[in-house]
């Protein structure tokens, strides 16, 4: 810690030797500097020190609050706060020029944080799977909806009863009202005897239907699961089929750009020079995940492969810890219908084999 702190005495000694004055004089000056700065802050509320920055006294307005235990209304009184705004040059120096142990420490911390990030990525994946499950759930209600019309059918029969009525009797209005009653009455008459004789049969039918539904559900889920497994093993095949949520603006832009000028995408060059960031491959990670994390869509993974071609032989087998450059995508590269993208993808898939 001592290495990371310039203490008062160290500053005094450094000043004395640098400015060519005695340590005593340096001490007197520094003490005067501090006391006068405080005094000036009191009187002027703002003190500018060239080559360092500006000290400000900011007023914090009084505000109302509530005592948590009693629920009483209280006012928190206003006070002054000391703020320091570094000079632009100093700020830049600090932002860029530090190569100290503390920064190294932070980098190490960053590495330990990586598993957490991996967990985050996994969480995203799970959320995605749940989203797909949600779609499945939406599909099953459709089956139920198909059944419902069958139940509605008896209601449809009612108007048929209506038709003969006006033909027989010329007084239509009073006859229309009693119609629902005859429909309701026959039902209980039929059901009561059935309940006695066929109770076992009805329950059997119910059980069989339930079993069949369960089986159908099981096979459906299994086919889905194998699809996911395929996707995890080689993500590319799925990428073609599945549609990802792209911000609505883009969806609107892309087709229009294709319609108006088909030559336009060709004019905008691809470049892998601009690197968004470099990431190390963590255990269990893959290019598609990195693409999803940084581009929001895993379909763009071939670009990451293309930017790292020089040290990647097989995009699906990457040793842990390999640095991966993530290139910045321009508008042209976001178009997955581009021929160049298809070629790039095929090339990447070839390398996988």
């Amino acid at each position: 810690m001592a290495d990371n702190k310039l203490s008062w005495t160290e500053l005094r000694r450094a000043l004395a030797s640098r400015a060519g004055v005695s340590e005593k004089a340096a001490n007197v000056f520094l003490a005067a500097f501090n006391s006068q700065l405080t005094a000036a802050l009191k009187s002027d509320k703002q003190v500018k020190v060239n080559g360092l920055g500006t000290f400000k006294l900011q007023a914090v307005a009084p505000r109302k609050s509530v005592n948590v235990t009693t629920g009483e209304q209280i006012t928190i009184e206003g006070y002054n706060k000391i703020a320091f705004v570094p000079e632009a040059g100093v700020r830049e120096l600090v932002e860029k020029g530090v190569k100290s142990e503390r920064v190294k420490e932070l980098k190490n911390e960053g590495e330990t944080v990586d598993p957490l990030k991996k967990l985050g990525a996994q969480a995203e994946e799970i959320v995605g799977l749940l989203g797909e499950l949600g779609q499945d759930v939406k599909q099953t209600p459709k089956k139920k909806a198909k059944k419902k019309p069958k139940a509605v059918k008896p209601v449809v029969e009612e108007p048929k009863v209506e038709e003969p009525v006006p033909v027989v009797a010329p007084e239509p209005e009073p006859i229309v009202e009693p119609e629902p009653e005859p429909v309701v009455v026959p039902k209980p008459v039929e059901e009561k005897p059935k309940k006695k004789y066929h109770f076992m049969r009805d329950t059997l039918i119910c059980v069989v239907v339930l079993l069949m539904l369960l089986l159908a559900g099981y096979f459906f889920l299994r086919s889905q699961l194998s699809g996911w497994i395929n996707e995890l093993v080689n993500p590319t095949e799925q990428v073609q089929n599945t549609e990802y949520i792209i911000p609505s603006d883009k969806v609107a832009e892309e087709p229009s750009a294709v319609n108006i000028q088909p030559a336009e995408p060709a004019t905008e060059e691809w470049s892998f020079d601009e690197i968004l960031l470099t990431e190390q491959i963590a255990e269990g990670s893959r290019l598609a995940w990195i693409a999803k994390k940084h581009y929001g869509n895993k379909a763009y993974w071939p670009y990451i492969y293309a930017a790292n071609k020089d040290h990647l032989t097989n995009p699906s087998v990457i040793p842990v810890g390999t640095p991966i450059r993530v290139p910045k995508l321009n508008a042209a590269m976001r178009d997955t219908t581009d021929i160049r993208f298809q070629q790039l993808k095929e090339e990447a898939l070839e390398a996988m084999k």
Partner: protein
Amino acid sequence: MLTKDLIGLIADAAGMKKKDVEHLLSTTNAIIRENLMAGKSIQLQGLGTLDVKARKARTIVHPRTGERNVIPQKNQLVFKPVANMKDELKKI
């Protein structure tokens, strides 16, 4: 208040010439800057601490275009006043 005025005040308080004070102040600031550049924090007795804090890199998403960008890791200069001074200046 500007640096010029502060120099005048310090000169009066310490019984030094303005020229000397100016020289001392500029060298002090140079020393402070160099140490900040090296990532050291600076203790100013009776005033506070100038500290360098590291901010981690983070990914941001443009809300309209959905474009992803990385704000790189950087260091920030932070001033933390001494409790004594903080209390003294709270109410004037």
